[in-house]
């Protein structure tokens, strides 16, 4: 496969899609259907994104265990393979310019590509859960445990306790149980009062009943398996020296301590806005999802013309909604470069919009029901907030008292957010903590400025870019 630049325009592709999850696969295939020259880049070794991770390679027994919602990914990945989309896996995008030039690294070498339209379907990440002891070995995100199951067929050994709230927590608990893990307890942090917030949205949610039925099924399964349930848990601490040994918390007025070898945390997922922040896109703080969202229009175009963000990277709505939004973003891109006319675009969009509405109906109910507890962003002083630089909650609060108004100031004074993860694990907590301290909205407080590279890149990889001839040959080798 050869990358060639159109000498007249300087573009390498009509459309580049970053991300091979449901949103990215759907976007790339739709754009290709309208005759666009499309490349899809993903840092994973194969298509699937988070939900369908490793679906093209997982053994049949594992696919069966993970269920039909997982297996749907096989069909998408097969269609992608036949679609004529140029796919580049193991390819990490580490910079994007305001002119949409994409810089990506594959096998230690960096290459630049330039599309007319860029679709960043970079998905979501699990919300950080700053709880005392969350940095101990043996503590993982629940989704991380699911990734281990999908990609290597392993489950945590010993007594496993799941902590937090949300549909994914229940799903992972059931999947681990099926795979033979010893689920010692499900410790739910969801405040009981959430039910009252959620009830007004139940009517709308029940218009797409499959989601509610699935949730009920998961709960029933865990009950039948005899997994101990705790509700409205708080004052959670993970104990241990060089690894997890126990979990302690308060629930219903009593203190509980459970011996544990593995603790799996989960408080929902939030858009991964690293790339969007790098490009200084407009963001809004969503007070229902408690997350930053890049602002997008009906065709998922962001505040930077030509850059579209569909899927969970824009707003959490799940895999089926991500497929629909990916297709709509592609229709937007194809229309912007004249591959479809307005009336075809509108006509083709109708079915996708209908699907998007259908799969979004349950969202408000779930968001309210599983809204993380307020105390999650008011951790005890000694709790690590920035995992990389080991900055604790007390230090952040102290910075606020000293007058730091925003996260870029606390970063400057305490190194919070300056480590290798570039704030991915602390940004949202720090913004929420500063907002509380100053009685401001999170929107006013803002978030970290992000600079390239998005991932640590060896110097040799960057050096290849300096000379255009090297860069061209590198890119040929890499993508052939």
């Amino acid at each position: 496969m050869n990358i060639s630049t159109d000498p007249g325009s300087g573009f390498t592709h009509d459309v580049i899609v970053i991300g091979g999850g449901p949103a990215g696969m759907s976007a790339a295939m739709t754009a290709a259907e309208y005759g666009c020259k499309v490349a899809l880049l993903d840092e994973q070794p194969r298509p699937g994104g988070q939900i369908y991770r490793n679906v093209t390679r997982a053994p049949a027994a594992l696919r069966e265990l993970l269920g039909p919602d997982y297996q749907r990914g096989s069909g998408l990945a097969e269609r992608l393979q036949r679609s004529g989309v140029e796919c580049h896996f193991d390819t990490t995008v580490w910079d994007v310019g305001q002119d949409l030039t994409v810089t990506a690294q594959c096998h230690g070498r960096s290459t630049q590509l330039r599309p007319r339209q860029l679709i960043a379907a970079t998905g979501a990440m699990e919300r950080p859960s700053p709880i005392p002891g969350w940095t101990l070995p043996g503590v993982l995100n629940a989704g991380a445990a699911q990734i281990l199951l999908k990609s290597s067929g392993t489950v945590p050994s010993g007594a496993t306790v799941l902590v937090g709230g949300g549909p994914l927590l229940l799903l992972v608990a059931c999947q681990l149980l099926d795979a033979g893990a010893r689920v010692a307890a499900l410790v739910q942090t969801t405040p009981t009062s959430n039910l009252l917030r959620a009830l007004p949205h139940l009517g709308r949610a029940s218009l797409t009943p499959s989601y509610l039925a699935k949730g009920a099924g998961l709960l029933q399964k865990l009950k039948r398996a005899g997994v101990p349930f705790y509700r409205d848990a708080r004052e959670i601490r993970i104990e241990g020296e060089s690894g997890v040994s126990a979990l302690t918390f308060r629930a219903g007025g009593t203190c509980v301590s459970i011996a544990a070898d593995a603790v799996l945390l989960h408080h929902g997922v939030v858009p991964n806005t690293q790339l969007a922040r790098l490009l200084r896109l407009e963001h809004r703080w969503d007070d229902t999802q408690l997350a930053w969202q890049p602002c997008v229009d009906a065709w998922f175009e962001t505040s930077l013309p030509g850059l579209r963000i569909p899927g969970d990277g824009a707003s959490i709505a799940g895999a089926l909604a991500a497929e629909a939004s990916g297709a709509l973003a592609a229709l937007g891109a194809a229309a912007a470069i004249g591959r479809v006319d307005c009336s075809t675009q509108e006509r083709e969009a109708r079915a996708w919009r209908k699907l998007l509405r259908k799969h979004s109906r349950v969202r408000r109910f779930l968001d309210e029901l599983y809204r993380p507890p307020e105390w999650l962003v008011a951790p005890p002083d000694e709790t690590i907030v920035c995992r990389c630089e080991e900055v604790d909650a007390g230090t952040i609060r102290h910075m606020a008292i000293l007058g730091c108004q925003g996260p870029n100031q606390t970063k400057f004074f305490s190194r919070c957010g300056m480590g290798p993860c570039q704030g991915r694990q602390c940004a949202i907590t720090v913004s929420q903590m500063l907002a509380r301290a100053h009685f401001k909205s999170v929107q006013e407080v803002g978030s970290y400025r992000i600079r390239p590279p998005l991932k640590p890149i060896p110097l040799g990889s960057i050096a290849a870019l300096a000379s255009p001839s090297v860069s061209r040959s590198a890119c040929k080798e890499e993508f052939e």
Partner: protein
Amino acid sequence: MLDGDPLRVEAGQPLAAALMKAGLSVFRRTPVSGAPRAPFCMMGVCFECLVEIDGVPNQQSCMVEVREGMRVRVQDGARNLEATR
């Protein structure tokens, strides 16, 4: 190879998963307090799983698949000797 000792694992899984399966429980120690750390997110967003692969440091072992002949070194002297046997 892990820290110079040969290790046999199944190819085609994330390196972090293979290392954990082989018994590596501490991947790095923090520069500030020396606290032990291990993979946390498995999707490339926490950077707790950094190792040196074939001489190149700071590679996310959760995002790289095991290949035959890979030479892996745990960084910051955090290697867990038990795991390499």
